[in-house]
C-alpha cells in the first residue's frame, strides 16, 4: 500500500499544476468601431503594397532589403539601391537591440550612433531627389533615434507636411506626434494619433480622460473629433467589463479598466441623446449603438432592442460602425427573442454574415483564427444561444452551436497546417478538449443519442435554414459520437449499450486517441491492490509508433457482460471467485483505477465520482464483501486487504491548526476505509503468525495503527 503515499505525493503536484490553469473566458468585448487594423499593421501592409508595386511578381511577402536591392539593381535604379542600402543600415541600428540575442557591445553602440548621424546627413542631402518622401522619413527616423526631437518638429512643420500623401508621410506625421509629446504639446499629438488610429499611443494620452466628462469635453471641442470613436469604444467596453463582473463565471478582463458605474452609464446615455439631437455628429449610428449597448448593460433590454434596430439604419462615415451595430443587434435580439422559427431564420442569415465577416477580417496568411467576429460568436453561443435553446428544449441546436464554435478553429488550423506540425510532434488529439467535448461528455446519454440522430438526418430542401447553416459548419463525425456514447455507457455500467456503440468505432480511430499510451501498456485484469501499473512520464504521451491491436473498451464491455451473466445462479465458491474478478475490473475502470481510460479521457488526482457514472468502487466493495467468506484465511485476508485499499472515503481528514502551523488528523471512524482497515487489523490480530508480506509492508496500515494506537 505504499502506492497510497505515492498517489498522495502525485496529488500534491497535480493540485499545484491545476492552480496555474486559467479557465477560458467568453465575455469578450462586443463593441468594436476602431480598426480592424491597428496603426502598425496598417503601415506594414501599405509599405508591403508599395514594395510589391515596385518589384512586381518578384516581390517577397515581407520586406527583404537584399531582394529589393537586387531588383532595383536589375532596373538600373541607382537612387533606390542607395536608399535601400542606407535604410538597411538604419533598420539594423534601430532594431531593438535590447531584445535580440546579440546584445550590442559598447563599441557597437558608439558605432551605431555614428552610423545614424551619417545616414541622417545622407537623407538630408537627398530631399530634392525622386525618392524625397522616403529619404525625409529616413531623416526623421534618425533624428528620433538620436533624440533630436526639436529637429523633427521643425522639419515637419517647415517641410514634410507639404509632401504628397503617402504611407511615408503618415509615418513622418506619427514621428512628429511623438516629438510633440516630447515637447509638451500633448493635445496636438493626441489628435494625430486619433486620426491615424494609433490606439497604443491614444491609450497613453487619454488614460485619465476616459470618463463621461472627458468624452463630453472632447465632443464639445469637436463633435467629429477623431478620438471620439476610440473613446466611445473604450467607454462601452469598460461598461461591459463592469456588467460582466456582476455575472457568474466571467473572467476579469483587461488591465487598467476604468470601472463604469450605473450613474456614469446613465450620464453617457443622456450625452448620447444630446449628441443625437444636436445633429452635429456625422456618425449618429455610433452614438445610437453606444446608447443601445449601455441600455442592454443596464438591463433595459427592450429599450436596448429598440435602439439597436434604429442604429442599424442610421448613417455613419466609419465603415465599422454599421457592422458593429449589426453584431450588437444579433446579440441583443438573441438574448431577447424566444427560440422560435423567426429567430431561427434571423440567426441563419446573421450567422452566415458573421462567418463571412470573420473570414474577411482574417488576412489570408493569418496565423490566428481569432478576431473580433469569432469572439462575438463565442460570446453569443455561450451566453445566448446555448442557454436559450437548451431552455427551450432544443438541445440538438444548442449542441450544434457549440460544435461550430469548437470545431471551426480546429478545421482552420488543420487547413493552415499550423496545429498539424505540433500534432506530428506530440500526436495530440484535440478533439478531446474544448467546450463541445466537455458538454457532450457531461450531458445525459439520451441527449447525445438524440444529437447523433439529428446530425445523421440528411439535409434536404425541406430542412430549415438554421439546420442547413449548422450542418455546413460542423464536422459530421458519427465515429466520434459513437465512441463517446460507448464510453458514457461504460461509465454507467450499461455494457450492452456500450458494445452497440463501440462496435461502430474502428480500431484506426482508437489509435488516434490520447489514451492509447495507457491502453497499450495497462490491463484491467491486474489486481490493483497488489500491483500498480506505472508508466514512465515520457511514455505517457501519444507517439507515432504506438498502436493498440484491440479496442480495450469494447473488450472490457463484452467481458463484463459475460462475467455478470448468470452471476446470481453460481455456486457460492465459484461466485466468490467471480465476484473477485468483477471487483478487480470495477476498481480498475473507476476514476481511481489504472484503467481509468476505459471510462474517461483524462486522469487527474482531483477526479471524483461523476454525476453520470455508477459508483464502481462501491460495487467493488460490495462484491469483495460477498467474496470474503468464500475461501480460506489467505483468501479472506486478500479480500479484506482489497476492501481497505478502495479509496471510497478516507479513514481520516485533515484540519488546519493555526497554532501548530500544521494539519490535525481527524479520524473518520464511520468511513468505509476506517471500517475496512479495522476489519483487516482485527483479522491480522487473529492470524498474526501467517500475515502476508503485502499486508505487513502496508504503510497506510501502519499509519492507521499509529493514529488509532493499536
Amino acid at each position, binding site marked *: 500500500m505504499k502506492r497510497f503515499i505515492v498517489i498522495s505525493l502525485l496529488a500534491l503536484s497535480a493540485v499545484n499544476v491545476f492552480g496555474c490553469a486559467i479557465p477560458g473566458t467568453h465575455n469578450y468585448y462586443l463593441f468594436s468601431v476602431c480598426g480592424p487594423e491597428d496603426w502598425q499593421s496598417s503601415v506594414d501592409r501599405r509599405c508591403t503594397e508599395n514594395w510589391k508595386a515596385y518589384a512586381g511578381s518578384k516581390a517577397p511577402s515581407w520586406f527583404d532589403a537584399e531582394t529589393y536591392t537586387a531588383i532595383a539593381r536589375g532596373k538600373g535604379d541607382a537612387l533606390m539601391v542607395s536608399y535601400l542600402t542606407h535604410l538597411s543600415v538604419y533598420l539594423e541600428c534601430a532594431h531593438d537591440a535590447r531584445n535580440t540575442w546579440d546584445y550590442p557591445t559598447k563599441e557597437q553602440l558608439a558605432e551605431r550612433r555614428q552610423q545614424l548621424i551619417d545616414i541622417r546627413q545622407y537623407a538630408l542631402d537627398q530631399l530634392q531627389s525622386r525618392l524625397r518622401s522616403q529619404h525625409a522619413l529616413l531623416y526623421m527616423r534618425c533624428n528620433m533615434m538620436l533624440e533630436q526631437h526639436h529637429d523633427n518638429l521643425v522639419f515637419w512643420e517647415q517641410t514634410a507636411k507639404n509632401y504628397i500623401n503617402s504611407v511615408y508621410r503618415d509615418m513622418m506625421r506619427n514621428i512628429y506626434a511623438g516629438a510633440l509629446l516630447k515637447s509638451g504639446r500633448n493635445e496636438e499629438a493626441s489628435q494625430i494619433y486619433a486620426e491615424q488610429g494609433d490606439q497604443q499611443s491614444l491609450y497613453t494620452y487619454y488614460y485619465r480622460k476616459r470618463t463621461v466628462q472627458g468624452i463630453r469635453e472632447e465632443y464639445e471641442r469637436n463633435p467629429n473629433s477623431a478620438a471620439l470613436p476610440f473613446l466611445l469604444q473604450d467607454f462601452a467596453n469598460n461598461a461591459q467589463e463592469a456588467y460582466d*463582473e456582476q455575472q457568474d463565471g466571467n473572467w476579469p478582463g483587461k488591465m487598467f479598466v476604468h470601472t463604469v458605474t450605473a450613474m456614469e452609464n446613465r450620464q453617457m446615455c443622456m450625452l448620447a441623446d444630446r449628441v443625437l439631437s444636436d445633429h452635429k455628429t456625422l456618425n449618429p449610428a455610433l452614438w445610437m449603438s453606444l446608447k443601445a449597448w449601455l441600455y442592454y448593460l443596464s438591463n433595459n433590454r427592450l429599450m436596448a432592442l429598440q435602439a439597436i434596430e434604429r442604429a442599424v439604419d442610421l448613417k455613419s462615415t466609419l465603415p465599422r460602425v454599421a457592422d458593429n451595430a449589426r453584431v450588437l443587434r444579433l446579440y441583443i435580439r438573441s438574448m431577447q427573442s424566444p427560440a422560435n422559427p423567426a429567430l431561427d431564420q434571423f440567426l441563419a442569415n446573421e450567422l452566415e454574415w458573421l462567418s463571412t465577416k470573420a473570414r474577411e477580417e482574417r488576412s489570408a496568411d493569418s496565423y490566428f483564427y481569432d478576431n473580433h467576429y469569432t469572439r462575438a460568436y463565442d460570446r453569443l453561443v455561450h451566453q445566448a444561444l446555448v442557454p436559450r435553446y437548451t431552455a427551450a428544449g432544443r438541445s440538438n441546436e444548442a449542441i450544434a452551436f457549440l460544435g461550430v464554435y469548437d470545431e471551426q478553429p480546429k478545421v482552420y488550423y488543420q487547413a493552415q497546417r499550423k496545429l498539424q506540425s505540433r500534432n506530428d510532434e506530440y500526436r495530440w488529439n484535440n478533439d478531446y478538449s474544448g467546450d463541445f467535448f466537455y458538454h457532450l461528455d457531461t450531458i445525459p446519454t439520451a441527449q447525445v443519442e438524440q444529437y447523433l440522430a439529428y446530425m445523421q438526418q440528411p439535409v434536404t430542401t425541406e430542412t430549415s435554414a438554421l439546420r442547413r447553416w449548422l450542418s455546413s459548419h460542423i464536422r459530421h463525425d458519427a465515429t466520434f459520437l459513437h465512441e463517446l456514447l460507448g464510453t458514457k455507457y461504460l461509465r454507467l455500467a450499461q455494457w450492452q449499450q456500450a458494445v452497440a456503440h463501440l462496435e461502430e468505432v474502428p480500431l484506426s480511430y482508437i489509435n488516434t486517441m490520447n489514451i492509447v499510451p495507457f491502453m497499450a501498456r495497462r490491463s484491467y485484469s491486474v489486481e490493483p491492490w497488489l500491483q500498480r501499473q506505472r508508466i514512465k*512520464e515520457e511514455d505517457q504521451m501519444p507517439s507515432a509508433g504506438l498502436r493498440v491491436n484491440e479496442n480495450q473498451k469494447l473488450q472490457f464491455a463484452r467481458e463484463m457482460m459475460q462475467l455478470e451473466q448468470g452471476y446470481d445462479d453460481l455456486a457460492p465458491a465459484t461466485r466468490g471467485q467471480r465476484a473477485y474478478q468483477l471487483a478487480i475490473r470495477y476498481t480498475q475502470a473507476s476514476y481511481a483505477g489504472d484503467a481509468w481510460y476505459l471510462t474517461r479521457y483524462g486522469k487527474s488526482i482531483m477526479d471524483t465520482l461523476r454525476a453520470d457514472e455508477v459508483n464502481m468502487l462501491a460495487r467493488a466493495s460490495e462484491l469483495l464483501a460477498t467474496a470474503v467468506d468464500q475461501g480460506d484465511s489467505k483468501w479472506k485476508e486478500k479480500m479484506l486487504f482489497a476492501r481497505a485499499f478502495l479509496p471510497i472515503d478516507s479513514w481520516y481528514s485533515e484540519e488546519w491548526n493555526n497554532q501548530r502551523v500544521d494539519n490535525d488528523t481527524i479520524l473518520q471512524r464511520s468511513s468505509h476505509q476506517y471500517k475496512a482497515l479495522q476489519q483487516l487489523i482485527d483479522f491480522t490480530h487473529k492470524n498474526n503468525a501467517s500475515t502476508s508480506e503485502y499486508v505487513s509492508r502496508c504503510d497506510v496500515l*501502519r499509519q492507521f495503527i499509529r493514529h488509532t494506537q493499536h
Partner: protein
Amino acid sequence: MKKVVLSLLGTLLLLCACSQQDRPPLDVTGRAVYYWRTIFALDSTERHFLNSHHVERIYCRYFDVVLTPADKGTLIPMPNATIQFRDSLPEGIELVPTVFIMNDCMQHPDDSLASRIVRRIVQMNETNDLQRVHEIQIDCDYTARNRALYYDFLQQVRAEARHYGMNLSTTIRLHQLSMPAPPVDYGVLMLYNTGDPNRFDHQTGLMARNPILDMRDVVPYLPHLANYDLPLAAAYPTFTWQRNVHGAHIEHVADFEEVMRCKQAVEQERSELRQLILIYHLDKENINRYTSNQYEEIYRH
C-alpha cells in the same frame, strides 16, 4: 509489527542522513534581494535599504525568454523585456543575472538556447560595465511533463556558464520539490505565489487563501525539504498584488506574520535555509510595507 516499523524507521533515518551528507553544502551565504523591473535605477530609499540591511547580492532579472512567432508560423525563443541599466550598482554588492524562461519554451527544444542566454548575459555585463558577476540564475515554472527537457537545458547552461567562471542556480517552486533535483549548484526555494489565485469561496466571494503565501499551501511540501537533493536558499515575499475580481477590488498582501511562520517552519525542516535569504522584490513600495526591524527578522540567520 512495531518492530518492523521501528526497523524501517531506522533505515529511513539512515538513508536521510546519508543523502544529507552526500549533498554538497550551500556555499553562498548572506542577504539578498530580487530586482524585477525593466529599468535598473535605484532611488534613495532603495539604496538606503540595501545599505542598512547589509544586502550583499541582487538577483537582477536581465530579461525574459518567450516564444515569439517567426517565419512560416514557427515559434522561436527570444529575449524580451530586457533590462536597461541607468544606474550604477552600489559598492560591494554582487549582481546575479536572472533570466525568466516561459515554461512553453521548454516544449520547443533548442540546442543553441543555453549558449545564447549565457553569451548574452556576458555581453550585457561587459556593455554595461557590470563586474563581480559569478553566477547566473534561471527561473522557470517547469512541470513534471517538461522537467526532463528543462534539466537537459540547465546542464547545457551550467556547462556554458563554467566557461566564464560562473555558477548556476535556479528557482524551485514548492510543487517542484516532489521531483528529482535539477542539475545546478543550488536552488532558491520560492516561498511566495504559493496559492491558487482562482480559488474563491463561492459563498463569500472572497479568496479562500492568500495566494501570495499561506502556510496551508506550504505545509504539504515540508516533508520534501529535508531530503531534497540540492543546496537550498529561501526567498520570501514583500509584495502586494491588486486586481479586480467580480466587481470587487482585491488586494493580496504578503503578511509579515505568515512570512515568519513560514520561515520558522522551513528552517526547522532544513536549517540550511537560513544561510542565504532573499526578498522578493526590491521596490520602494515594498520596502515601506514592513518595518526595518521586521526585515531584520526575516533576514535573521
